[in-house]
């Protein structure tokens, strides 16, 4: 069964303290891995998509990487405004090639 597991469940950082979030996945065939940010009471906001092992994407303080079994979201020198829940999702092939399968998310709190 296709599955996505994120760790840790929650992470508390001091402003400027870099860290990484993990997303491990088990799918029959990966068509894409997606990172989203979700603020309380809001919809998921797209951050990155990765398609093949070794791929990396970067945006401001965030960098996403992908291996054959997991993805990392690295946060460099975070600020309080980076506080949110970060969701990882996969699209699997050939079954269920449309739907996104989400992990439970990592709740990040960045304190001044």
């Amino acid at each position, binding site marked *: 069964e296709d599955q996505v597991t994120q760790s840790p469940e929650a992470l508390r950082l001091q402003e400027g303290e870099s860290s990484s979030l993990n997303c491990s996945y088990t799918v029959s065939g990966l068509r894409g891995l997606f990172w989203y940010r979700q603020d309380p009471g*809001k919809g998921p906001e797209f951050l990155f998509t990765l398609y093949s092992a070794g791929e990396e994407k970067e945006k401001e303080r965030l960098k996403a990487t992908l291996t054959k079994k997991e993805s990392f979201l690295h946060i460099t020198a975070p600020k309080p405004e980076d506080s949110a829940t970060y969701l990882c999702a996969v699209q699997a092939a050939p079954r269920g*090639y449309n739907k*996104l399968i989400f992990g439970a998310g990592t709740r990040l709190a960045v304190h001044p």
Partner: protein
Amino acid sequence: EPEVTQTPSHQVTQMGQEVILRCVPISNHLYFYWYRQILGQKVEFLVSFYNNEISEKSEIFDDQFSVERPDGSNFTLKIRSTKLEDSAMYFCASSERTGGNIQYFGAGTRLSVL
């Protein structure tokens, strides 16, 4: 920047009543989706829709649920007879293409079934 728009933001209904949740996808997108998120749980896929028909649905999407694209801009989710366990955030999403293409989400409709 184009965005997915959902209305209402909050819907309160009595158990057994019908509700319709509305979405306006991004205008040049061809694929439409509904997801739900029960409080404190994962975002779960409900259904995908393309070319005026359902292309995929989950086990959650039973006979109580239906989707429709009544005109060129709206995409709706109907729940015929709501249950307490239908209380959740419902998110609409759209994408240009399928298979690895980015899905953009709306802000959601919070459905409260009393």
